[in-house]
């Protein structure tokens, strides 16, 4: 890493930089599911030579990028109902088989967005809890608990400045103790049974982060995968 890059690391990450970092930490050859929203950015950073296969829970392995407008096929969409394409080696299966694949622990990595993540890895990402909201859950709960490793990509703070990494989720849960790591603009943090531990900081310090979150964070464990 050059000195310039090291200096850049000291600034908060852009969304693209977070996505690149998530992509970088996915092992070659993995089967990966990218949740709706921010996590879809990760796809742009997965080099084709790495043998990474994308799963979409509506029933496909080997999903490719969005098609040219002329090639849109209404029968070929991703979990966000956005048109996608088919790569060589793709396969199709029905909904029960697709979710069996997830629930059975066959997806190596799942990257999800979140409203809140707790220090012990609980996830809240399907409901804002607003009383008048029309609820919708989709495959969120299956994805959260099904993958071998579930990580979250999100901003560390809400738009009005409240922490999204919390001692205990106040929003309706998606899954209990299912998240391993969160990737944010200011920090990469491991969560789990032993609580939250900083992996790497971007433009902030351990003390500042603890103050911002109102949480005690374990020591930086170094960049591990």
């Amino acid at each position: 890493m050059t000195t310039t890059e090291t200096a850049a690391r000291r600034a908060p990450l852009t969304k693209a930089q977070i996505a690149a970092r998530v992509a970088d930490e996915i092992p070659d050859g993995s089967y990966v599911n990218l949740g709706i929203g921010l996590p879809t950015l990760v796809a742009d950073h997965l080099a084709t030579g790495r043998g990474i296969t994308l799963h979409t829970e509506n029933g496909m392995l080997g999903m490719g990028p969005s098609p040219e407008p002329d090639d849109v096929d209404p029968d070929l969409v991703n979990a966000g109902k956005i048109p996608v394409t088919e790569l060589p080696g793709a396969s199709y299966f029905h909904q029960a088989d697709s979710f069996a694949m997830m629930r059975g622990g066959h997806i190596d990595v799942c990257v999800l967005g979140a409203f809140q993540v707790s220090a012990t890895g609980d996830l809240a990402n399907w409901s804002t809890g607003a009383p008048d909201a029309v609820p919708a859950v989709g495959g969120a709960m299956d994805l959260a608990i099904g993958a071998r490793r579930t990580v979250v990509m999100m901003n560390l703070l809400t738009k009005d400045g409240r922490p999204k990494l919390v001692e205990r989720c106040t929003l309706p849960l998606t899954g209990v103790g299912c998240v391993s790591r969160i990737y944010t603009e200011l920090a990469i943090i491991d969560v789990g049974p032993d609580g939250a531990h900083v992996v790497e900081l971007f433009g902030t310090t351990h003390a500042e982060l603890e103050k911002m979150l109102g949480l005690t964070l374990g020591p930086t464990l170094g960049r591990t995968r």
Partner: protein
Amino acid sequence: MSAARFAPSALDALGDVADGATVMIGGFGPAGQPTDLVEALLEQGASDLVVVSNNAGNGDDPLARLIQRGRVAKMVCSFPRQVDSWHFDSAYRSGAVELELVPQGNLAERIRAAGAGIGAFYTPTGFGTPLAEGKEHRRIDGVDHVLEYPIHADVALVRADRADGVGNLVYRKTARNFGPIMTAAARRAVVQVREVVPTGTLDPEAVVTPGIYVDAVVEIAGNATIAMKESA
């Protein structure tokens, strides 16, 4: 199920649907929506329906209009909220339609269980969340599971790509989604296909839904885009 019957129109294929029936509707977003069959259900007139479907209608599509007209008493689905689910949103907020929200994988597995004769199953999905509240649970091998029951239906409306003369079906790409499990879970499975082909022309290794699950088939020439792509 007895051998598939071929119908001259979607309405004929639909047959009788009683008030209060449970109707499964295939499709995930635009892919695999049995639009003509739902349109026929609108025309047929049954009301007080329980509809099992991943989504709850978009814009003014037939399912949305079914909800708008007060024909649906309850939706069982995983993702009713869409940018254009106006009719469902309004009916839900006014209390005109009841909602059973089910995680998508539990929805799929419960439908599969109905077709497969499984009485109930323990799934880890949803444990500890509001969607498992009040449900029986059990720790198995150190993992908490929720007990879920099958979802049976009186009729399933499904779109496939091709059917042969005995009702064997193949689908197209992600339009497969709920078709294979819904045809098995319903007492009567009604399928709209783009094309009926002679028996013996579908590869027996590639049949996705065997004809045993199919009760009625209607050929709807359908989407020009798709037809064009197939011949390309």
